[in-house]
């Protein structure tokens, strides 16, 4: 659904900007892994595409608020970063397929890198509700980009929070994937949930495969619509039938099973994908 949300609060969280927006319909239907698309630039802007942002959190206040956490990366997110309380922004959401939750209680490791760390937090709540044990591995390039550490620590009463930074300014020096195998082993994890840059997701998936446990990843591809109609956000994913298809990160994802995503072929059309030029097609007419 599309709503015009009113900004309730804005704040800086280290390197990130956080906006809390009143958006009842979206908050109500939110599940962890969902994202929203936000129009940027205001009236008569030259920016025609919306920006995709994960929903970090929802709260029941004012009928329902959503919290967005983002980096001012380019002109669109910079514009968003300048919003103030009482400004309105147009949102479409919740979008995408959320993380599938395990039917029975199990041990979960939640990995979040860079702004992707906004996603594990609400996911942890949902998992904890189902009686799962939740351990965190959160990381980024530097301390000011490690998001959600405090909140994770508060949630993880029974569990652990591992922080990593590339520059060693906080927690373990290195990437989340350096710490992950140890955490999986220590916690005897059943499943990994991950959100972050594509390179990280690829490595997390490799770690999961190595450890013999499934990995659920929430991917990030450049998106023009976020609702499945523009076909610009595709990546090669292997289906249940073993066939690789160019699936939409927005509507078929953003959550996929890590081992199904052909990370090494992202940005290409694998020759054996359905409908690939020169032969991949299985159903040529």
């Amino acid at each position: 659904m599309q709503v015009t949300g009113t900004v309730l609060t804005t704040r800086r969280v280290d390197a990130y900007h956080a906006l809390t927006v009143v958006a009842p319909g979206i908050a109500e239907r939110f599940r962890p892994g969902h994202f929203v698309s936000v129009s940027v630039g205001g009236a008569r802007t030259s920016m025609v595409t919306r920006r995709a942002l994960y929903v970090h959190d929802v709260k029941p206040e004012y009928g329902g608020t959503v919290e967005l956490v983002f980096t001012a990366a380019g002109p669109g997110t910079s514009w968003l970063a300048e919003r103030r309380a009482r400004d309105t922004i147009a949102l479409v959401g919740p979008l995408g397929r959320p993380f599938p939750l395990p039917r029975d209680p199990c041990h979960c490791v939640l990995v979040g890198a860079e702004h992707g760390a906004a996603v594990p937090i609400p996911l942890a709540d949902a998992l904890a509700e189902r009686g799962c044990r939740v351990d965190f591995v959160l990381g980024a390039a530097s301390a000011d980009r490690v998001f959600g550490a405090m909140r994770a620590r508060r949630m993880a009463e029974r569990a652990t929070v591992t922080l990593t930074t590339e520059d060693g300014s906080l927690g373990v020096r290195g990437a989340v994937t350096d710490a992950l195998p140890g955490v999986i082993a220590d916690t005897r994890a059943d499943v990994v949930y991950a959100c972050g840059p594509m390179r990280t997701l690829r490595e997390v998936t490799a770690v999961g495969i190595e450890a013999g446990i499934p990995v659920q990843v929430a991917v990030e591809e450049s998106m023009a619509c976020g609702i499945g109609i523009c076909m610009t956000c595709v990546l090669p994913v292997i289906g249940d039938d073993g066939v690789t298809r160019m699936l939409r990160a927005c509507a078929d994802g953003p959550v996929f099973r890590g081992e199904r995503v052909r990370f090494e072929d992202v940005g290409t059309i694998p020759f054996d994908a359905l409908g690939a030029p020169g032969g991949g097609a299985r159903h040529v007419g």
Partner: protein
Amino acid sequence: MRTFLAHVELASPVTTAAGCAASGRELAQFFDLHRLGALVTRSITMAPRAGRPTPRMAETPSGMLNAVGLQGPGIDVFLERELPWLAQRGIKTIVSIGGGTVAEYAALARRLADAPGVTAVEVNLSCPNIEDRGRVFAREGGAAAEVVASVRSVMRYDAPVVAKLAPDVADIVSVARACVDAGADALSMINNPLGMSIDTVSLRPALAAVTGGLSGPAVLPLAVRCVWQVHSALPGTPIVGVGGVMTGEDAFQLVLAGACAVGVGTALFHDPYACLRIERELEDLLRARGFQRLADAVGLAHRPPGSPARHLHEESSL
């Protein structure tokens, strides 16, 4: 607000633009597709197509570039799954087709000829002609006409054939005339002009396909001009105006230039409800200007300056 595309009546003058509404189901989550003038499908090809590598999209000032490369399921799956879903619900469907040879277009039309639920066929002429060194059909009147004639000859007589033209030509009127002479019942314009963007960080083209189609508000003035020129030369030919329509006022410009229906593409990416909003805004504008029917406004900007605006100040009942 009713309109006619050739002899087919549409309940609204606002349709989706080809390739901008996927299978239709995606938009159906947001609103009832019956409220569209018609759903125009992506350009259906013979074989399934995986399309172009990513990045397929780059934002440009008031526009975007896309190089999707006609990703789609191919005609078999389309006829098996996508068309029936639309047909069962009685959603007016204009099927866009794309091919690499005249024979391929004809074969596609043949497959559609007795398929239930095909309101009209739109011939996407912006495909590379593999028999002419990849030159796009729409760039050459002769090639475009051949495609149109072959599609018209096999298509059901009561399904209009709409030729979709591109603006990257020296003389759009001559291409339009060639298509109409070859049997096109209506024209749709404009498809995306070819553009390009370079990423100044990676120092490489922003799109994997290097060049891509430009769409969005940036191209509206090109669309208005094309519709104007073609309507001027071929006033009897119905035109679907497409290109950069974001508001009812944009749609109204195309109508005044000569379009009897309006296609909406990029705006849908921004606002899933764009077609409904644009129809409402267009209706309000027409009413505010005293028009009783959309038809009274079609091509009205062509009347000589100073001529009386007969329709105005009469009672309105759109």
